[in-house]
């Protein structure tokens, strides 16, 4: 009997599903080797089908996306019960991802921004999504939209993580191969190389021994040379702090690394470490000048915690008032 595999998505954009589809013809090898028993984006199985499966009957569940709603948490817990292994698939499940940046705002201001303040919103009656809603004598229930975004690992125990926004098809294929052969590493391992991106960067040879950045530039402000270290060109590249394994795809596309693969095993908090690494490269010892150079990084939280705010020691903006939840 073929091992059973499930895919699920939580607070995500669909890019991780794309990574599965990007296996292209290799997806046939996967399908030949495993039974996909649940995959909402591509196959018509329902929650009730999963509920009917015996506990532990799924070999591995690949869950992408962060956890923002009650439904996402329920599904994560359900799949945890049914699966022997749960793999946090992609940056959002692993460390919160881009949706995790919503933790810089409270729930009310998010709802206000989306449902009344955004310039393209037309909502004269000020309708907001309601968890409970009655109409024509029918009661409707929506999932609860919670105060905070959490990582998958903050909601259920996770056995392995595959990093990336999205992960590469190669990492997924390698993980499936490891599952099938039973050659699995220590639980808790991130299934990607444990070294910094700079180490496998195609422009590695052009990285200066000592970097001193006098001006941080954004990609649209400069004609980027294609064969020179991006930091040496003043672009804010997070390669020094980011885990390798992405095949340097952004660098190959002549764009700086934004850190989606997260930290290596020696680092606890990606954002603080990435900030440390970049700030140290500021090419001045004069305080006023340092401040001025660093002003070219207008949004440090969004830059360094782009993919990992909910996993950070301070997992979001502090809410005012001691009683705030």
């Amino acid at each position, binding site marked *: 009997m073929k091992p059973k595999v499930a895919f699920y998505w939580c607070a995500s954009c669909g890019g991780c599903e794309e990574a599965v589809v990007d296996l292209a013809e290799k997806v046939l090898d996967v399908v030949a080797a495993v039974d996909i028993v649940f995959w909402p984006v591509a196959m018509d199985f329902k929650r009730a089908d999963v509920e009917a499966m015996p506990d532990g009957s799924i070999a591995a569940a690949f869950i992408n996306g962060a956890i923002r709603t009650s439904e996402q948490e329920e599904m994560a817990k359900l799949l945890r019960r049914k699966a022997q292994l749960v793999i946090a698939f992609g940056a959002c499940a692993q460390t919160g991802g881009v949706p995790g940046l919503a*933790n*810089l705002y409270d*729930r009310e201001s998010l709802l206000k921004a989306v449902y009344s303040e955004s310039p393209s919103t037309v909502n004269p009656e000020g309708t907001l999504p*309601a*968890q*409970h*809603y*009655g109409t024509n004598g029918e009661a409707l229930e929506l999932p*609860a939209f*919670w*105060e*905070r975004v*959490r990582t998958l690992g*903050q909601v259920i125990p996770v056995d392995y993580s595959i990093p990336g926004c999205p992960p590469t098809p190669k990492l997924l294929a390698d993980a499936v191969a490891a599952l099938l052969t039973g050659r699995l590493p220590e639980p808790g391992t991130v299934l990607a190389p444990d070294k910094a991106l700079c180490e496998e960067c195609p422009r590695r040879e052009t990285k200066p021994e000592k970097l001193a950045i006098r001006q941080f530039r954004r990609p649209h402000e400069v004609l980027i040379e294609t064969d020179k270290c991006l930091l040496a060109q003043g672009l804010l590249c997070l390669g020094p702090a980011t885990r390798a394994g992405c095949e340097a795809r952004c660098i190959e596309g002549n764009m700086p690394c934004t850190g989606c693969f997260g930290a290596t095993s020696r*680092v*606890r*908090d990606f*954002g*603080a*470490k990435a*900030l*440390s690494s*970049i*700030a*140290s490269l*500021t090419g001045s*010892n004069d*305080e006023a000048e*340092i*401040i001025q150079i*660093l002003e070219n*990084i207008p*949004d*440090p*939280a969004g830059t*360094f915690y782009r993919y990992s705010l*909910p996993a*950070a*020691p*301070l*997992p*979001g*903006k*502090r*809410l*005012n008032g*001691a009683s705030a*939840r």
Partner: protein
Amino acid sequence: MPEASGPVGQDQAPVFEPKIVAFFCNWCTYLAADLAGTSRLRYAPNIRVVRVMCSGRVDPQFVLEAFAQGADGVLIGGCHPNDCHYQEGNYKALRRYHLLRRMLEQMGVEPERFRLEWISASEGERLRHVVNEMVEQVRALGPFRKCEQTEPVEEAAVR
């Protein structure tokens, strides 16, 4: 609710005693604290000193972790510019401080809670002044509470 770690007066709310984690460099600020001690200078007992070899050793992860584990403020003390025992560790601290300060503001951490000061081995008096000042500023702000990943309250029924 403020933490009731301070003295309790009669019929008075307990005074909030802030906890401040102080990372002091081995060559300057830690010696200034030593000097303040041997000179019998009195200053607020609210700092918990962690001796590091250089202010440049203070990883921003330490600062975030301190706040996450209940510190109400973080103070970094290092050698004056040009005085670093390792030539430029204090400049690295300075560069990180300014970027981290701005990131902490985005997380709702008031600027008074995070401070970098150059205090040389002979400046015991200055150490006393900085600590006392910071303790009072943080006391006025109240306890630091990080955002918790609490599960939300069930939303009240609408209509």
